[in-house]
């Protein structure tokens, strides 16, 4: 039996500064041992604990898709001591990854349906994974229309620009990317995510929506979906709480009887309606 507290050793393959404020960096990680790479079987929506010896661990959503190969992509906001340390690390450095943890977006259970993805800010990470997975030739045929709505404060704060531009151009998905205010050099949509969602008006028939973003965005997006006639069990959200163990023991991500790290982070709105708002 594996000790699931011990992280797999990985090396940093590539570091990329993602945003203009330099608070977000992306890290491509490569497993040091190939058997670890095969053991690390994940699906979009799951997260992992990034471990830096001497600093600790942080739970971060996996931004890469298993369809992209063995390497893992994480985009990390610089807030605490672990993420600050990580931001100072460079390609070739060794760190650890523990996971995959949590449940994932219920994609396989919703084959044949239209998928609406709503993302705000840097919560787009696991949805990048989802998009890449959905658009992969092996999976694309299993789903109907795919709508991707994504907003950030400014154009410079948008993540994965190359990728969503490619999705847009491929015609495989309806991509709507917006920024909060007009900005020089930006010719795309302007406005908050809830407004744009209202304009796009995704139809609830035979569809599910995956929503991930800051609480304020979720708060205002919710009534938009209600108005369009969406039911609670069609709306799927990913939560974020403070975590340590990541495997449903240590208690800090507890929301009612559920552990966000193990029973989540993905919940349907039907489930959340029965839980305390402790997230």
């Amino acid at each position: 039996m594996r000790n699931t507290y011990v992280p797999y050793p990985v090396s940093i393959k590539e570091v990329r500064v993602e945003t203009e404020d330099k608070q977000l960096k992306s890290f491509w990680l490569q497993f040091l041992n190939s058997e670890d790479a095969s053991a690390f079987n994940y699906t979009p929506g799951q997260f992992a604990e990034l471990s830096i010896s001497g600093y600790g661990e942080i739970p971060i959503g996996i931004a890469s898709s298993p369809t992209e190969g063995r390497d893992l992509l994480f985009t990390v906001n610089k807030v605490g001591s672990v993420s600050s340390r990580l931001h100072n690390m460079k390609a070739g450095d060794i760190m650890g990854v523990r996971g995959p943890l949590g449940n994932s977006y219920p994609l396989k259970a919703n084959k044949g349906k239209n998928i609406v993805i709503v993302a705000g800010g840097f919560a787009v990470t696991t949805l990048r994974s989802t998009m890449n997975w959905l658009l992969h030739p092996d999976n694309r045929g299993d789903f109907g229309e795919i709508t991707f709505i994504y907003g950030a404060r400014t154009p410079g704060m948008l993540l994965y620009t190359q990728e969503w531009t490619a999705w847009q151009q491929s015609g495989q998905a309806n991509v709507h990317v917006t920024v909060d205010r007009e900005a020089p050099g930006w010719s795309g949509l302007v406005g908050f995510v809830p407004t744009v969602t209202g304009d796009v008006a995704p139809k609830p028939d035979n569809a599910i929506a995956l929503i991930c973003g800051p609480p304020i965005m979720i708060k205002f997006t919710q009534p938009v979906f209600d108005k369009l006639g969406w039911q609670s069990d069609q709306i799927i959200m990913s939560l974020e709480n403070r975590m340590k163990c990541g495997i449903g023991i240590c208690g800090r991500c507890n929301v009612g009887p559920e552990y966000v790290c193990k029973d989540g982070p993905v919940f349907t709105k039907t489930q959340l309606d029965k839980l305390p708002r402790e997230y």
Partner: protein
Amino acid sequence: MSQKILAKDKVDAFLQGLCRDQDLFAPVMKDGKVGWGPVATAAEALWEFSNTEMSPKDFFFPQTECMMRFKNVQGDPQGMIMQAEAPLSRPRVLLNIRPCDAKAFQVLDLIFVQDEMTNDLYWRDKREKTALIGLACNDPCPTCFCTTVGSNPHGETGLDVLLVDLGDHFLAKALTEKGEALVKDLPAAAAGDEGQAAELKKAAEAKIKGGVAMDKVNAREVMELYDAPLWDRVMESCLNCGTCTFCCPTCHCFDIQDETQGEAGRRVRNWDYCMSWLFTMHGTGHNPRGTKKDRVRQRFMHKFKYIPVKRGGEIGCVGCGRCVQLCPVNIDVRKVVNDMNA
């Protein structure tokens, strides 16, 4: 499983046998307090006591436990790879553990070991290598309420052997294979022993007066209990200290921290407690349980609603009454649960 006799003048010999290839611990008197300590003879251990002040959970889940180590040497990136701490080297026996505390470990087993991923090897290793010889309570405290939360002063759950003090000798009931091996050399019980133990059990149960009622708590939805007005009064005097959670045999929340000292580094886990403001604090400054009320409510809801919902009806409390005795502001769990059940 067999029923044996442990004569009181044979206890020393019995313990010597146990000590041969195992570490033996029992409740002992330390500075006027009843606590756990290593013993080798019957005289060192306590045989008449209500219970230890702190629960024995730290035998399986130490307050501070090193999980992994690494080397913090410049220029040696390989040293930074975490190596798991070695498992327990010698098996152990906990003698005279109370049935409520043994029951608590079985509740914790449901949490520490769930599946392939949630599989705490640190906990499991110590559980597997430790035998529990319980001592039935013939004189429960006024703060005990085990019978009302599915435990019993003569409870057998989680134990390998149960000793019942029959006056001139102990009845030793083997309850598992492990327990059978421990008592195999003892003589078989006499005909009347079992009946006498049953009488004592009945008498002990009768001594437990106060208790909690859980029927309505079980029937109610999570949110109904969560939104109940009682929490405004329960939280008033609470200090948000960690006393109740640290003395509790079933509280199991922890924190993981990395520490370095020179070239040595380790990842260590420490008990943590949901009463702490810091416990749920996000890096962004948002706190899902930001008020004292949220935190006080969490502890009771977790034990009496969340764990039962999640773990097939098992209650996260064994009725040992430690928190009732030690709470600096006398928040009595029995009153809280009865209010939840009102």
